């Protein structure tokens, strides 16, 4: 891949670099065992409506990993809310630990070494939270600090990152673990309307975990310092993305224009976070952007003036996994790390958008 980014930026050279800070040291991901093409999902639901079929085909998604129930006599069985909640928890406790193990393995850490556990999910309501279930299942310490972030949607990985980096900064040397686990297929409602079809065509299941620690011995090669955060909330669009109740089930609603509304607002937090550090967009080496859907990806790319190259992981994760909700940016982050293109001093911006309507950004420094 040809480097088209700036070779020398005086602003990047002048950036104040902290001697140490909370670094993302490792990332792990996991998906359900079964992968579906869009055609297979349409066939699964026996979907014949040409508008819905065309929606699936134009989603820019090839495959998704899903926990779909086994059909009985070739028909999809209507599931109760209880069954969906169980599927969420069962799925989370299958792929959540896999993502955590993949994340801890390269560091030689075990769940027992974790000092702070933050779990993020939106696709199933549960009490006690996933963190408590994981502690029992994976043998974390009985005195591990924990937080569960429930219901913040696709942007919540950044909110979780705020929690684990704050912990890491306040407790140098201690290890914080963030898990984002979303079983979106447990929040599907199939009622043949376009509103639910949009959701059913878009979201996929997956889990992603990162370890964050502040330690003077770590360098850029271990991972980036999370330097800063900048949120942006659009209160007028409070209801643009939300759960509604369909009978007894939660049904996710996405307003038609919200991708473009996010696009029209995205430069606000980005300009603020970059301005605070004397940077401009063209100084940014790596963009880690939520794979929310084809429209919002176009809108963010256009409104920030980014290139297809900048968006390659965002587009690739959407194509291969669908919208993974909160875990999405961590999947993109993993792809970026795997490319081995990152150099010392590189600067990255993470953007995730979700209900609120909110746009959460973070600044990463290698």
């Amino acid at each position, binding site marked *: 891949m040809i*480097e*088209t980014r*700036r*070779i*020398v930026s005086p602003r990047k050279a002048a950036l104040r670099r902290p001697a140490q800070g909370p670094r993302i040291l490792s990332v792990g991901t996991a998906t359900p065992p079964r992968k579906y093409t869009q055609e297979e999902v349409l066939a699964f639901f026996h979907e014949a409506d040409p508008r819905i079929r065309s929606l699936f085909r*134009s989603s820019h998604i090839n495959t998704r990993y899903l926990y779909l129930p086994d059909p009985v006599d070739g028909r999809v069985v209507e599931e109760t809310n209880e069954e969906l909640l169980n599927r969420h928890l069962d799925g989370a406790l299958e792929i959540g630990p896999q993502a955590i193990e993949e994340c801890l393995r390269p560091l030689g850490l075990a769940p027992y070494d974790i000092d702070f556990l933050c779990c993020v999910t939106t696709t199933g309501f549960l009490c006690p939270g996933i963190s408590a279930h994981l502690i029992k299942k994976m043998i974390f310490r009985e005195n591990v600090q924990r937080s569960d972030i429930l219901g913040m949607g696709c942007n919540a990985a950044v909110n979780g990152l705020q929690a684990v980096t704050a912990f890491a900064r306040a407790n140098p040397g201690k290890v914080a673990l963030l898990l984002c686990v979303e079983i979106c297929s447990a929040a599907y409602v199939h009622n043949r309307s376009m509103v639910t079809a949009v959701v059913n065509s878009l979201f996929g299941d997956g889990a992603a975990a990162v370890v964050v620690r502040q330690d003077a011995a770590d360098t850029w090669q271990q991972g980036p310092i999370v330097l800063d955060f900048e949120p942006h909330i659009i209160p007028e669009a409070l209801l643009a993305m939300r759960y509604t109740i369909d009978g007894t089930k939660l049904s996710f609603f996405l307003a038609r*224009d919200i*991708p*473009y*509304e996010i*696009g*029209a607002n995205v430069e606000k937090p980005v300009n603020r976070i970059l301005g605070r550090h004397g940077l*401009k967009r*063209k100084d940014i080496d790596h963009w880690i952007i939520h794979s929310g859907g*084809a*429209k919002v990806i*176009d*809108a963010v*790319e*256009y*409104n920030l*003036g980014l290139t297809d190259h900048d968006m390659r992981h965002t587009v690739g994760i959407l194509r291969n996994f669908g919208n993974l909700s909160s875990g999405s940016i961590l999947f993109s982050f993993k792809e970026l790390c795997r490319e081995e293109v990152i150099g010392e001093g590189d600067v990255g911006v993470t953007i995730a958008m979700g209900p609120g309507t909110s746009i959460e950004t973070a600044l990463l420094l290698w």
Partner: protein
Amino acid sequence: MHAYDTLRVTQEGNVVTAFLARPDSRNAINMRMVNDLSHLIDAIDDAKDVAVLVLRGSPDVFTCGIDLHEFAAHEKRNIYGLQKWEQMCRELERLNKFTVAAVQGECTGGGFQLMLSCDTRLAERRAVFCFHEVKLGFLPGMASFRLAKYIGLGRAKSIILTGRRVRAEEALSWGILDRVCDQVSFDEALMETVNDLLPFHPVALEMARRLLDESYATSYENYLGHFLAAQYRAINSEAFDRLVASAARQEKASEAGRTGAGRRKAREE
């Protein structure tokens, strides 16, 4: 404005003019000039009081092209300087202000490419354009990428592969230039060209230009997605708010006019 070694920069109102200024070497493009242009473009990008950037040369030469004195004589030459040049051209092409190339005299190689990166291109009748690189044994930068989009592959091959000189009138007829004028009316024509670009709506400019740059490069479906995202932003901008409000006022005024006229007509009868 910052002072540069290789540029003379002036500002009048919201128009900044940068003159390529290396008189001893016919404005040859060296690394210093690339860095100066890059710095200037960066400053213009931030400037709230600028709407147009005009690039000019001297009265008899825009530039004679790349300065070969820049290259090491007896060692392996690296590509980074040329990459920096391409980066600068791209930043010019995507600047958040209008860009104008105003060419007098010789415009060779890199100068031709600078011109292709601008939004509008004006030249004096005596101006002559050419890409001599292939004739000399190297490549005319990413101009090969840009030129074919302006004039089609056949003509681009004819210009780049033969290195032949193109006169201003011919460049005008092919659409490389938007306007050709005589020496005496050059400044006047330039002013008209600048005024034709205004008023300046930065969002609309950036989006429209980016979509145009994509027009030969992407599928209809992808382009449509980009267009809708861009247009959403435009129709929710302050400029569009004003447009809609003004249309509503006109509608009201003409309605009032109609009812007024109707009453007068009734009275006359």
